[in-house]
């Protein structure tokens, strides 16, 4: 029963991965001749300043994204109606940004921010604000972050909303009777109950933002200079632009391991005190 799936995974994931590993430990002089260099590429990458800078930029970007999108997503989900005709309208509105192809998103914002023809760029310039994402680092970062927030907050909203809607009405009734304030209701009822979905939202957003490529590439191309050259962009420049397959392969493996590590850390931290929930849930779940 499992063999077809294994075959599929092997073909689409494991074998390509092995090719990358293969490249990462070899070097070439051209003419398709390869020789073993062991961990040389890995050492070079890990010590290169270029790699460190790209890593820091990516970490900063992910951090800012999470810091904005998660609270904003929760807030919007809380504000959405749980019953009635407006529910479908809100859900559709929230889903729209997620349906747009990623390079189209990039293109939208690239044009949007242009000083000459973009609504945003031109508008800001006409009000007197000096805004140019192709030349100013801060402007470039701001544009990318706002674009990502616009694009992906809906995911957090929809996930949190599904968690909120699953809370039985009786909890809200009891909270009213207990005289709980809005904040208390959020803190003691809603937040604990959406913990699981929130974890999924955080993990998804972290992974996606850490690996982000298409949108920033389309908008800034990694510029100005290398101000928005994230790890992924740097990697592609090295592999496809410079055709340095060895270092590129090594870097992609390191990239992969970094993501794995950070995800594991997130997951452990967020589920550490969940173990007592597991036991509690078992005992409270009615007949055994």
């Amino acid at each position, binding site marked *: 029963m499992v063999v077809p799936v294994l075959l599929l995974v092997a073909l689409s994931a494991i074998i390509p991965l092995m090719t990358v590993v293969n490249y990462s430990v070899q070097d070439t002089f051209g003419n398709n001749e390869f020789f073993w260099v062991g961990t040389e590429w890995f050492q070079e990458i890990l010590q290169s300043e270029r790699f460190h800078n790209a890593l820091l930029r990516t970490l900063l970007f992910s951090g800012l994204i999470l810091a904005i999108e998660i609270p904003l997503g929760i807030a919007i989900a809380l504000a959405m109606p749980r019953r009635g005709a407006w529910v479908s309208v809100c859900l559709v509105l929230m889903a729209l940004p997620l349906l747009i192809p990623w390079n189209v998103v990039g293109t939208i914002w690239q044009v949007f921010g242009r000083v000459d023809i973009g609504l945003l760029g031109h508008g800001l310039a006409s009000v007197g604000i000096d805004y140019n994402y192709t030349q100013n680092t801060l402007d470039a970062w701001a544009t990318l972050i706002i674009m990502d927030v616009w694009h992906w907050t809906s995911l957090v909203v929809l996930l949190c909303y599904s968690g909120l809607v699953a809370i039985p009405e009786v909890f809200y009734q009891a909270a009213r009777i207990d005289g709980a304030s809005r904040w208390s209701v959020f803190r003691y009822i809603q937040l604990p109950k959406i913990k699981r979905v929130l974890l999924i939202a955080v993990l998804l957003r972290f992974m996606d933002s850490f690996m982000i490529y298409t949108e920033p590439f389309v908008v800034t191309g990694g510029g100005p200079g290398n101000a928005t050259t994230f790890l992924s962009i740097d990697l592609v420049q090295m592999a496809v632009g410079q055709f340095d397959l060895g270092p590129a392969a090594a870097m992609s493996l390191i990239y992969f391991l970094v993501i794995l590590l950070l995800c594991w850390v997130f997951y452990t931290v967020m589920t550490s005190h969940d173990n007592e929930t597991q036991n509690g849930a078992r005992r409270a779940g*009615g007949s*055994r």
Partner: protein
Amino acid sequence: MLELQQVSHKIAGETYIDNISLKLERGTLTVLLGPTLAGKTSLMRLMAGLDKPDSGDILFDHKSVLGVPVQKRNIAMVYQQFINYPTLTVYDNIASPLVVAGVKREEIGRRVAEIATLLQLTPLLQRKPAALSGGQQQRVALARALIKRADLVLLDEPLANLDYKLREELRAELPRLFAHMGAVLVYATTEPTEALILGGNTVCMHAGRAVEVGTTMDLYRRPAGLLAARLFSDPPLNTVAVTGSAGNFSFHQALPAFRLGNNVSLSGDFTFSVRPHSLQTEKPASNAIALPATVAVTELSGSESYVHFDFCGQAWVALLHGIREFARDEQVQFWVQPEHVMLFDANQQRIALAAN
């Protein structure tokens, strides 16, 4: 015959079923009686094949069924929550096991009609489950289980979510429904009254162990241990510690000593227990034991009175016929006949007194 041999089951390090061995014959009804978390559902899931035991063997008709997946076993299960296919009509719901088994249409029609009459569902056959009341939905679930003519029918507290009156009605019908089925019937419940009405055999469960097994009436009238005696008491069993010395017993307070049975070798610490309906306010016989009490609260329930009182520091309850109201802190004298007393030793095993 369904046989469990030293079955144990652990989940995440916690023992849910602890070394249970049972033999359940075809055509018998076995009640699993115990509080929530006693392991009743876990045991039923093992019997059904939904879970695999960590140790021990499960045999059906002398053949091990451990590796057999649930779909291949001929079993039916009814749950506490009324589980029906929400998009199918009642008729299709009841017919679904037969459709899966590939039975012919006319045969299906005949059998569904038969079961529907049995469970009084005939006028409802074209409705969807959402349009039915709780009791009716559970009847549909029961019909679906019965039509299969399964070898093993498992019912997990099927009446627990029903109104009190509906529960009474359905409970009275169950023995009639289960008769002549020739299957192994297992019924889990927390209510001793249900066990007594259903009869058959009972397995008293506590903390994953089968504490006592036997005919329901036997376990009720002659429990081997204090745990089984408690499980079967509704209202709760009244107990108090007593000390015996060569057959003479005394409460741990300044009250006259009394004799129980003829065994003069009984000495040591014992647990003296009386079922609430065995207590009386008039002295029934010359050898009745006196129990002076301070009333805490009286509950009147139409034809009976539950008097809660304090006796030797224990909270006791008496079930009296008729409306008997006592004031709070009133001193009342209760009596119990020695043949209605159950005595348990320090290991919570019952001592056979002459009369029992």
